């Protein structure tokens, strides 16, 4: 009793069980149904692209950190998530080396140059995707029908030809992970129940898109189910690092994403604006945080 030195530390003395790593692995788990669906529809390409993206992302992170002589913290799982999401956001026929380049850009330009985990202003996976889209536009817009390797001209968003059921189950051309609304919702529910997903962003995002689609006389359900809206709203807009931390801010963020998405979809020259809608709102995140500070308990007027 005399000899043992006691531990001295500031309160609180107990901590919640959740860790960054657990959160990231849960996201991976939530992506498994999506990946499974992608593999079912697009076959080997799904396995090839996602694997390659993951390996390139984690590898780039490890190499960069090693070069900086920093602890190689790849086990936190964030690069894994980035790689997986990037892989799932690619069209099935993309050449392997492009996926590698995209993952490299995502991790290095999108994340590590800003100081690594938690410091990146933009969603790394989307940075990777956007760079690929801007560099290899034709390869990034080459879609295939599920179960075939036949290149088709357009996704349902452009062609406007798919039934709700097809869209819901995912038997339509599109990026690997975006086609099956069912699988995405499954993952989303898991994230929500694990308390990882803040409902405000997806609800704001999807809700705004739905309302504006209705206002502009579009087929609301079709707009929601086609394209990568669901995938992005559930897995990418909700990236905590690049979305606001205030409750009101997360509404603003979600609604803003929806607004930009609709503007690009309906008036832009790109068929799908998801990547850009989230990236644009990422850029606003610091400002949103600053201007949506919660009212402190006991304060009467909201501070600006």
């Amino acid at each position, binding site marked *: 009793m005399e000899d043992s030195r006691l*531990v*001295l*530390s*500031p309160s609180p003395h107990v901590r919640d069980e959740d860790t960054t790593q657990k959160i990231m692995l849960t996201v991976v788990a939530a992506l498994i149904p999506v990946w499974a669906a992608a593999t079912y529809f697009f076959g080997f390409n799904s396995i090839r692209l996602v694997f390659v993206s993951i390996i390139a992302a984690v590898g780039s992170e490890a190499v960069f950190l090693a070069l900086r002589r920093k602890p190689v913290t790849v086990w936190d799982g964030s690069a894994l998530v980035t790689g997986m999401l990037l892989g799932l956001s690619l069209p099935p026929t993309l050449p392997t080396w492009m996926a590698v380049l995209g993952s490299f850009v995502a991790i290095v330009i999108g994340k590590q140059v800003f100081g690594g985990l938690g410091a990146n202003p933009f969603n790394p996976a989307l940075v990777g995707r956007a760079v690929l889209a801007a560099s290899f536009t034709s390869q990034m817009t080459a879609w295939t029908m599920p179960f075939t390797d036949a290149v088709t001209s357009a996704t349902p968003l452009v062609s406007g030809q798919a039934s709700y059921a097809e869209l819901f189950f995912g038997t339509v051309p599109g990026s690997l992970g975006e086609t099956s609304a069912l699988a995405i919702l499954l993952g989303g529910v898991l994230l929500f129940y694990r308390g990882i997903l803040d409902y405000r962003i997806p609800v704001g995002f999807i809700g705004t898109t739905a309302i504006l689609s209705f206002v502009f006389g579009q087929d609301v359900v079709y707009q929601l189910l086609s394209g990568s809206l669901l995938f992005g709203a559930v897995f990418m807009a909700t990236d905590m690092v690049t979305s606001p931390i205030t409750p009101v801010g997360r509404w603003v963020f979600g609604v803003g994403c929806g607004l930009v998405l609709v503007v690009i979809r309906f008036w832009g020259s790109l068929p799908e604006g998801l990547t850009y809608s989230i990236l644009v709102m990422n850029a606003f995140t610091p400002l949103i945080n600053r201007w949506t500070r919660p009212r402190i308990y006991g304060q009467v007027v909201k501070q600006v």
Partner: protein
Amino acid sequence: MYNSLVALASMGGLGIILSVGLVIAAKKFSVEVDERIEEIEIALPGVNCGACGFAGCRSLAEAIAEGKAPINGCPVGGIAVAEKIAEIMGADSGNAPERKVAQVLCRGGCAEAAQRAEYDGPNDCRIMNTTQGGDKGCTYGCLGGGTCVEVCPFNAMYMDENGLPVVIEEKCTGCGKCVEACPRDIIILTGEEYGVHIRCRSLAPGKEVRQVCKVGCIACRRCEKECPCDAITVTNNLAEIDYDKCTVCRRCVAVCPVHTIEEQDGKPEIKAKKAG
């Protein structure tokens, strides 16, 4: 040729209008300002490129005059401009004050000082200090969290293997940030030529000091007796040195039984000057 003359005339007209306008405006809207700002502004390149991070040359000039920006704040002007500004500013600020250097007045690192607990929390001395006073046996000594190193804007400090901060004297500018940050108040600023320091701040009685630290001042008064210039006095269980009186004869260093007094490895010529 006709067109050339039209060009000449219209540009001339424009020139007259604008220059007259500016001259009148300069008279009419002249505002009293700090002369130095004006002078610095003239010394600056005046391109208002914003490379300095300020809103144009005038803002930088104001910032320099108010001491909010360094004299070499303009990257465009380079060294030449910096020198000129130094002249302008220097003329005003008189002789450069004596260069000060930070001194860490504690020698009780991991090897010398006892621990009373295992600290497990943020590595910041200020937080350690408010967490039950920290894990160190001595409640006066260095906590070893390296907050001083952290706050030093000039990278002039590092933590040694023994868990004590070390000041790199060439780099230290005497800004005093570390002094402010240290929760134990064991860093002081001295003139750089002072050569002997009593590196302990403990006011505890000798007996208690012995229990917690091998190199803490036990107030034995030997240094006080040994000092030929009455530079050392022991009050409140702690020897203190009057730097003005000290001639760096180093006799106290030799007699201190616990090696609390330490000679600063300063520049040889300064030591010689002081000794001679």
